């Protein structure tokens, strides 16, 4: 099954019943699948909006009613959606936002890229908020992380970003799906717009004109983000037990890096892979611990060094940090990365 279809199906299985989006390559297969899938469900709504702006705001309205909602787009479209994402972060509305990244800036191209790491992990829009950012690297992880995204969004009442790229969106791999979640069995949301019956009328808004109240709200969000950092950080270690050099990579780049690590191992180099699954919160503590053991870290990204900054913040001076990156939609081969690892091993006399 194609990656974009896997996300759409997994969302449906997670109980998502509301989708609004606008066409943009390379993620068009997702809304196409969703429109057909939702047509078969009586309680589901699919809307092709007139713009990304409209799509995210329609999603905002649907989320206010308590529905599990999703939108998807690619880099330029995600920029347009930042308005709504900021509002939803402020109003504490759950939503799942899929970004199938392409090369940029501007219109860029439609090739796979990881150039939106900064935008995704720093909130993206105005107002100093965060979104949880999940980075799937395989077809099967598209299933698990898409479904998990909905749970996280509901638990913490915030937008969750699923950050993929054109390669993972287009690629077909065999996957297995779990049993569907019945939306009726999900925990009831007590904060929704549901009509002022037997209670005071309710308001969902991000406007807080009083600076004291605004500050309180910002602190509330900050405490929530702190809780998420402590509880939800996820990463995958690969061949790290005896490693002298660790590659740090996420998503598609991590896939390529895994192949590179295997090749380097064949050359007798003790290389391993540290793969962040949550990009925000970033697995800082775990990476810092690793840095105390490996001495050399190679960050590999399909951009010119964005996660690199988080690695530097986490590692400090615990290990030497090296970087290799290809922006603009170039897909490195496992051999290319293996060659970088091998050179580093020779230069620093790693065994």
């Amino acid at each position, binding site marked *: 099954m*194609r990656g974009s279809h896997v996300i759409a199906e997994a969302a449906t299985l997670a109980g998502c019943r509301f989708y609004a989006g606008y066409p943009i*390559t*390379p993620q068009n297969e997702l809304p196409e699948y969703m429109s057909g899938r939702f047509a078969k469900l009586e309680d589901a709504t699919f809307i092709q909006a007139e713009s990304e702006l409209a799509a995210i705001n329609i999603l905002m309205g649907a989320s206010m009613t308590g529905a599990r909602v999703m939108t998807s787009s690619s880099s330029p479209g995600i920029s347009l959606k930042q308005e709504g994402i900021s509002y939803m972060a402020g109003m504490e509305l759950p939503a799942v936002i899929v970004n199938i990244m392409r090369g940029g800036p501007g219109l860029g191209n*439609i*090739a796979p890229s990881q150039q939106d790491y900064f935008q995704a992990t720093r909130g993206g829009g105005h107002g100093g908020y965060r979104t949880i950012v999940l980075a799937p690297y395989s077809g099967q992880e598209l299933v698990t992380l898409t479904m998990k995204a909905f749970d996280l969004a509901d638990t913490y009442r915030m937008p969750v970003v699923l950050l993929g790229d*054109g*390669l993972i969106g*287009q*690629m*077909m*791999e*065999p996957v297995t799906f779990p049993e569907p979640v019945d939306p009726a069995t999900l925990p009831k949301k007590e904060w929704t717009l549901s009509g002022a019956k037997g209670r005071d009328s309710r308001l969902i808004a991000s406007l807080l004109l009083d600076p004291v109240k605004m500050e309180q709200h910002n602190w509330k969000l900050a405490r929530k983000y702190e809780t998420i950092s402590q509880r939800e950080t996820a990463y995958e270690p690969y061949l790290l037990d005896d490693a002298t050099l660790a590659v740090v990579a996420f998503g598609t780049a991590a*896939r*390529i*890096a*895994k*192949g*590179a690590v*295997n090749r380097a191992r064949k050359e007798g180099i003790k290389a391993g892979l540290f793969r962040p699954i949550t990009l925000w919160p970033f697995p800082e503590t775990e990476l810092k611990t690793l840095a105390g053991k490996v001495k050399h870290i190679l960050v590999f990204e399909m951009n010119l060094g964005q996660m690199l900054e988080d690695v530097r913040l986490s590692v400090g001076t615990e290990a030497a940090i090296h970087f290799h990156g290809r922006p603009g939609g170039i*897909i490195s*081969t*496992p051999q290319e990365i293996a060659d970088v690892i091998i050179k580093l091993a020779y230069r620093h006399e790693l065994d």
Partner: protein
Amino acid sequence: MMTITKTIFSGFGGQGVLMMGYVLATSGMHEDKHVAYLPAYGAEVRGGTANCTITISNEPIASPVASFPDFAVLMNTPSVLRFEGKVKAGGVVFLNKDLVDVMPKRSDIEVVQVPVNSIAQNLGNPRSANMVMIGALVAKTGLVSLSTVVESVKEIFATKGLKVHEINAQAIKQGAAFVQKNNP
């Protein structure tokens, strides 16, 4: 031992290029191998040409992209010009003999020419030319077994009925037979 093979399929839109890739990927999956199907997408897809890359491996696949494919199935002349130079030394190129009017110049690759349109025409269904080619590819390379391919095709076209399935099965077998006779 690691065995990882990459096959590129390329041709005009409408020649069933993506379907060939899908059949191969599905067959690999049925044989419990790791598979990845990566279609070329974007502007070029709308331009009338199509290509896809199939990776089949006995261990998890690092990159589904093929810089240097082991095999290339080239259904028209532009595809030959585009992919001939990329095939790995010692690799095999499969040409649609009915439509390709150039020969690869390289001497370090094997060239298999199959008149897939003619064979399909004789079978009474010109549209099964891609099935002839997949039969030829599998018979020559042993990427998956011929019977798995036949079963996968039956499954993929389950809604099309018995007659279509019989033609497809015939096309796959004739493609295989052609290669076994001419390029053993």
